[in-house]
Each structure stands twice: as C-alpha cells, then as structure tokens.
C-alpha cells in the first residue's frame, strides 16, 4: 500500500531574493521579500497562507509573518531546528499539515545575513543544539562546521583513499552550473588548480571546499496536491519526504560512526514513501555545506557504495549531461547559502522545466537533501506531475 503522504502535497510556489555578499536588509526582510515572490509565483494571495515555518534561529517568527503579510487566520506555526537539514525536513511537516487539512498552504522561508551579519562561528555557539560543542570543543579550538566536519572527511580519505582531487571536482562542477544561473554570488569559472591553491581552512577543507557566507532569502509554499494542480505553475508533487537524526546527534565526536549521517535513516524512509530508488533520479540537489558532504551523501543515498564517492563524482558524471547532474544552480558552494532552500527551489524549477541553461532534459523525478546540525539529514523526492 502506498504511503499515506505519497504525492499528497506539492511545491506550489517558489521565491528568492538576489544572492549577494552585502545587504542592508534584515534577515526578516529577506524572508518576507522571498515569501511574497513565492506567493506570487503560486498565484496565491498572502491571505491564503495559513501555515508558516520560519527559519530557526533566523530573525523571523510567526508573529512577524502575521504582522507583515496580514495573515488572517494562521492555523500552524513551527520551527524545525535541524540546521541545514531544516528546510527539507520542514517539507515533511508541511506535507503532513496540508495532507490532513490542518493547513491549505504552508510557507517555508529562510532569510540569512551570513555575510553582512554575524558569521558562522559566532552564530552556532548560540544554538541550543551546539551546547555540547560549546562546552567541550570550543575551549580546545573547534568552533565551526568546517572544523567539526573536517575530521570525518579526513577519516574518509584515510580509510578509502578519497582525495582533494575528488573534492575539487565537486567544487568545479558546481561552479560551472552556477555560471549558467543568473542569480549567484560566484560567477567566475573555477579550475582544479585554483581549488588546490586556495587557502587551507581546516585540513582537508580548503576555501573552495566550503560553502559561502552570503546574504539572501528564499521561500517555498507547500499546498495540498489536489489544490496545487489548479494553481499557476506545472504541478510538482512530493513523492517522498523524510528527516533523520543520527546517533549522538549533538556530538560528532561521540558518534559510533563519524560517517553515518541522519540521512541514512531518512533515505530509507524517503525512497520507500516515494516508491522509487536511486536509479529513478534524473537530477539531484545535494546539500553542499562542504564538497565532502556531497560526496558522502551520494554514498548514503545509494548512488554508489561507501568509499566509492570519490571515483563516482569524476568524469563528468555529476555535471549537466552526466548520469546524475547535481546542484544545477550552483548550490551553497557557488550560488548562495540560504540553508538549502535554494536546492528545493532549483529542483522545482528543473521539474517545471524552468531551469534555463541548466535544464536537465526531460527531468521527471528529482531528489533534494538537507544536512546539518552535526549530521541531521533530510530528503525529498519530487515528481513532475503536470
């Protein structure tokens, strides 16, 4: 029997601000600007929004959305505090809300002043999920995800022979894709040599292995699939969606397997709900806070086996025209960092066939992941149902 949530919800609207380094706007203003665009894109009015999932913690709460968008009757407000896994995990909550009739249209939004506001090492120390890292790891010199995740990347390299060349392939391919998209922070070509020459941040991560600190906002609207088919844009349904939490969720150091992410649990459930497998995926938008994070998720998602992520990403396989084009918008590495909501937006564009020069021909089924907060994971599998 098909899962009760399969294709009951749809991504009905998408909106983004400009992705920049530098803005005078607040995180809240960026969220609202993107939200208004998403509402317009769906052919809805602000008053049609009855559920909101603002980014936590990110300068916006339900009260702000009611006050700014004049929402007459909000029936659901949620935070999903899962770091980079938040946005895709929020799609599960939103899908549940619209499938049960609690809501008609749920707005998920992110606004970040990652460049013009507080930087990552300052921001994270204030997250409740980072309390253990703040107590045990900040005093010995680990503050930022680049440092905390580097230890897992190093272990993968030592165990499986993964190399900086593999990481570079992901960075370079992602940049090539970004250049095709008009709204990106990084719009100049990147070579493997430039990647290797970029300064070391936390070995093995170099500058170009790391995602951007940028400013911008993004928003999507999740609607019941039977309502969304009457809206403005081609119908894109959620076939499967899931979140997963790893063992020792707030401390990578104490996790039995450093390379096990919450995604391994979520992927199993998400594929089962969708009724598809890795071979059915035409395009994938993989959360790319770091190049290595992409490589390891491709393994966890079953596109290749554990330890084979390095060779898998080579030879054009993950580029446009390859077997599995990934991050066709430029991702967090080159487009902008809005906690991966830009990945959901790009996948929706791909399935609507609105992806312009980066369009994957005949894309029917695609996958998007979230990863964050020391290894929480989420994925959604979307389908063109128009």
């Amino acid at each position, binding site marked *: 029997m098909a899962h009760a949530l399969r294709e009951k919800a749809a991504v009905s609207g998408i909106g983004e601000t400009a992705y920049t380094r530098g803005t005078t706007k607040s995180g809240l203003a960026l969220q609202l600007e993107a939200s208004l665009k998403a509402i317009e894109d769906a052919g809805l009015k602000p008053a049609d929004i009855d559920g909101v999932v603002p980014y936590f913690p990110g300068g916006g709460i339900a009260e702000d959305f009611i006050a700014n968008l004049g929402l007459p009757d909000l029936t659901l407000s949620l935070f999903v505090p899962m770091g980079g896994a938040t946005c895709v995990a929020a799609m599960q909550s939103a899908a549940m809300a619209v499938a049960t009739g609690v809501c008609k249209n749920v707005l998920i939004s992110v606004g970040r002043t990652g460049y013009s506001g507080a930087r990552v090492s300052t921001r994270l120390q204030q997250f409740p999920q980072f309390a253990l890292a*703040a*107590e*045990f790891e900040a*005093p*010995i*010199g680990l*503050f930022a995800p680049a440092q905390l995740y580097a*230890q897992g990347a190093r272990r993968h390299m030592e165990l499986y022979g993964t190399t900086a060349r593999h990481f570079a392939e992901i960075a370079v391919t992602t940049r090539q894709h970004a250049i095709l998209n008009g709204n990106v922070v990084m719009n100049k070509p990147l070579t493997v040599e430039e990647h290797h020459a970029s300064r070391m941040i936390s070995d093995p991560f170099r500058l170009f292995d790391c995602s951007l600190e940028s400013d911008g906002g993004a928003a999507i609207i999740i609607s019941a699939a039977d309502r969304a088919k009457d809206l403005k844009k081609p119908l894109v349904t959620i076939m499967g969606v899931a979140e997963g939490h790893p063992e020792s969720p707030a401390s990578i150091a104490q996790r039995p397997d450093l390379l096990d992410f919450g995604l391994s649990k979520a992927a199993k459930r998400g594929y089962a709900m969708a009724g598809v497998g890795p071979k059915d995926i035409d395009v994938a938008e993989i959360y790319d806070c770091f190049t290595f994070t992409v490589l390891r998720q491709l393994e966890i998602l079953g596109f290749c086996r554990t330890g084979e992520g390095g060779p898998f990403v080579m030879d054009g396989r993950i580029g446009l025209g390859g077997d599995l084009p990934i991050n066709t918008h430029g991702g967090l590495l080159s487009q902008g960092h809005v906690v991966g909501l830009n990945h959901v937006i790009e996948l929706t564009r791909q399935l609507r066939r609105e992806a312009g020069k980066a369009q994957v021909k005949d894309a029917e089924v695609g996958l998007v992941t979230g990863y964050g907060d020391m290894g929480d994971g989420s994925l959604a599998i979307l389908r063109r149902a128009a």
Partner: protein
Amino acid sequence: MSTAPGLQPAPVPERPMPTPTRESQPYWDGLRDGKLMLQHCASCGKVRHYPRPVCPDCFSMESEFKAAPLTGKLHTWTVCHHPFNFFFKAQAPYIVALVDMEAGVRINAPLRGVDASQLKIGQPVTLQFEPVSKDVTLPYFAIA
C-alpha cells in the same frame, strides 16, 4: 564601552572557557586534578561521554565518575588553519585529534609535538593536562 576606540591597545583575546553543567562538573573537576573522570552508569556500568542525566541503555539516573586510563588511539584529526576565534589566531595552525580512549569513549583535544603528515589512524597517544586558569584544566594529546 566608555573609552573611544583607538585610544587603548586592543584587548588580549580571551580563551573560550567551558561552562560546566550539573552533569559535567565532575569531568571538569577531574581534569583540574589531573585525572580523566568519566561518567559510568551506576546500574549497568556502561561508560558515557559527554555527561548526561540518563543512561541510554538501561535508563538509570544514577551514575558515578571513575578515573579512566589516559591512553588512546587516533581515530581522526584536522589541522585548523583559519582561526574562527581570535584567541586561537596565535596558535594556528594546530592539530585537533579525535581519539578512541581505552575506556571506550572519544576525546577531542589538540595534538602537540608532531607533524600532521606523520599521522595515521590507530596511532597510540596519551592524554595530558594543561591548566589554563585557577579552575579550568584542558586536555591535550601527545604521541605515546
């Protein structure tokens, strides 16, 4: 801030210090006394780190802290080049090693006195103690 900027030398950046909790206090007290004190379930005996109120195996809320051996093996490491914190700017680059301690938990701490190019998974290391204030001692590792 009562003084105008520029009139005084920049303050020396302070080391980020731990804020012990009711659960973790014995661990920090142990380091200050030159011991690695780890939390064990008083009911099933299983060790757990970082300290927390409930044993996730048998759900007992009773626990005791016992001194653990200082030896362990390298699980993985990173070399921090970019200082994400002002205090650590003067120390960069520095190695932070994640170590499988003999007692069955991991400790993350700086690894000193060795070049990163020499490191291998499984390499034996020993925990050392560095007092950084009257109350706080932090761990670091040296090659065994």
